[in-house]
């Protein structure tokens, strides 16, 4: 009669949300940006997205098979990395850039450091910066069928003005996923509503960037100039999808505000004083490196602990 039943330590119930759900939510939230990218740049963009995602996922699979580790591609984290990398590539890159980027992101930035949750740098941006440095001309070649001119940020940098309306909609040149502010915000709202991300990092990032740009930028608080800077380049994609990456942002609440402000500061410096027009990727990977320090400084005080006199 007395069958032995399962016992375990408390708690005996679990929430419904799993890592897979979170990753799938991010994939879903990126679909508008992907869709617009394909619409904007043509079918070639679709191929770049597919090749990058496939190479990221396959790298993880082969690495795990080779090392006889449990296969974790089912958690969709490699898909997210591949998607984010693809959205940060110009549409004109040759196919092998996608493959090299996907492999670098997963193998070097993620798996070699211990896989999911262990990487100190956002894999997609790590790979993007690697590609930018190694294949600068290919990665900054924005010539394509749809557009021939420079990116709006490059225009701004050279002192010209950009059409803000087009930039918000996304009718401009740039990497596949970064052009449409509306598509990115749409995806970000989906994540915000689901509670997958919050506004702490993106909010403090954007606000501090705008304040710095207004106070010390070449155009002051010029509405068109500031909106062009927000809509242009990887700002939106970076703030809502890359800077909010769980693994590489501080886990403490105060740390997230500090991190956002550091990103704002770095982006401002890179964009205004740097040699290239774009600065979000570098700002975020440098911010990533500061995360352990930020977490240490902003360790929360436990409930009821009194400040030492």
């Amino acid at each position, binding site marked *: 009669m*007395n069958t032995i039943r399962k016992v375990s330590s408390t708690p005996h119930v*679990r929430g419904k949300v799993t890592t897979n759900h*979170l990753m799938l939510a991010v994939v879903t939230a990126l679909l508008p940006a992907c869709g617009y990218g394909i619409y904007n740049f043509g079918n070639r963009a679709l191929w770049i997205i597919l090749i990058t995602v496939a190479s990221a996922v396959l790298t993880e699979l082969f690495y795990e098979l080779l090392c006889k580790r449990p296969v974790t591609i089912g958690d969709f984290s490699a898909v997210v990395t591949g998607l984010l990398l693809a959205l940060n590539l110009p549409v004109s890159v040759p196919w092998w850039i996608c493959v090299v980027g996907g492999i670098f992101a997963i193998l070097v930035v993620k798996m070699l450091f211990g896989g999911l949750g262990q990487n100190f740098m956002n894999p997609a941006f790590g790979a993007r910066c690697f590609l930018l440095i190694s294949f600068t001309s290919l990665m900054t070649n924005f010539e394509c069928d749809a557009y021939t001119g420079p990116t709006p940020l490059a225009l701004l940098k050279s002192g010209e003005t950009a059409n803000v309306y087009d930039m918000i909609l996304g009718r401009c040149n740039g990497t596949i996923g970064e052009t449409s502010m509306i598509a990115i915000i749409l995806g970000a709202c989906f994540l915000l509503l689901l509670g997958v991300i919050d506004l702490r990092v993106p909010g403090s990032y954007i606000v501090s960037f705008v304040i710095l740009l207004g106070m010390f930028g070449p155009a002051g608080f010029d509405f068109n100039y500031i909106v062009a800077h927000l809509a242009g380049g990887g700002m939106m994609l970076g703030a809502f999808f890359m800077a909010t990456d769980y693994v590489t942002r501080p886990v403490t609440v105060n740390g997230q505000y500090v991190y956002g402000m550091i990103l704002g500061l770095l982006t401002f410096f890179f964009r205004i004083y740097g040699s290239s027009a774009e600065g979000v990727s570098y700002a975020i990977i440098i911010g990533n490196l500061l995360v352990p320090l930020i977490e240490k400084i902003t360790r929360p005080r436990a409930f009821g602990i009194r400040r030492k006199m």
Partner: protein
Amino acid sequence: MTRSTFVGGIHPYEGKELSKDKPIQDILPKNDLVYPLSQHIGAPAVPLVKPGDKVLVGQKIAEAGGFVSACICSAVSGTVKAIEQRRVVTGDMVSSIVIENDHQYEEKEIEKPRPLEDLSREEIITYIKEAGIVGMGGAGFPTHVKLSVKEPEKIEYVIVNCAECEPYLTSDYRRMVEEPDKIIQGLQVVLSLFPNAKGILAIEDNKQDCIELFKEKTVDEPRILVKKLKTKYPQGAERSLIYAVTKRKLDSTRLPADVGCVVNNADTIVAVCQAVIHGRPLMERIVTITGDAIKEPGNFRVKIGTNYSELIEAAGGFKSEPEKIISGGPMMGFGIFETDLPTTKTASALVCLTRDEVSLLEPTACINCGRCLEVCPARLMPNKLSDFSAKHKEEEFLNYYGMECVECGCCSYVCPAKRYLAQNIKSMRKLMLGKKKK
């Protein structure tokens, strides 16, 4: 009325609808009753009887084994069969008094206490002590010790914990619906110990009917207030509750009395009323038998010492084979591997589930999402603490306030990677507490 609450916490599936509307049923034990000598925090009780002795209902069978300890009274009449090692819900073997029930329920002569107004502070506390009352919410801290604060005039709030924030549990709810006067009387007894205190009935807003009921009943009681709490787990945890009611913060090194509070569970308050007004010791409690594996979930008034198998029988037995049985609520209760266990003073429920959610999913890598930090009522970093525990880094564990953990389990509940956060932290805390004692 505004809803008070604390920062953090979770809102798990409540499951209370299974047994919420089932009136309390009395059940009498069929077989032997078992009284573990250690069913409270503190020193084990010392037996006053030996095998072969005849005992009566309400007779004290074990004496408190120290200041922080509680006595035990028999709930039936019969013969002491043995004093032997018996298994309890934690899985430990504990020395226990086994009483053979003669089904006569011969009562010990009960001396009715004098009216409350005539009793001195010491007399009231003695009644509570002699009744063997302990915190019946789960912790089992002897109530007479809790009420013996050094400076009683400094206590400003006597909080009755009617939150019942654990999923599935409805025993306190039924108490409130069916015997509200006993709770109010019990609170009056406790208030008589603290001249400057206000009595607060803290109730979660998923029990709106109780809030209304108590407001109506306490209209003419200037010293008793009803406080509406947000429905959230662990609203009933002592420190979270004190914060919700008074906005005073407390860490693990201080006691509620340090911020002018005394907190007692609703069921404990009823036991106090029984002891001081009616002179009856703690002999029974209300247990919720519920879960999707139980045929007729309900609330039962159970003689302490009754075997769990009898309780399950009383609730119609199993509808389907349970995969997991929990003594207590699913957040903080004990998983039990057999049902041949005695009901103790702190047993609030038996939750029988057909599916064990814990073994369903394997833990995966931490993705640093920060959900555990958000829900932690102690505002800790469970991800880091769990890591320190696994690596046995004592210094870091203490630096990150590991000892402030209240073991509520919110972090494990919410973790998307299903990591054993609370479990790791709990083991480490046990180790560190053990070290401190040496």
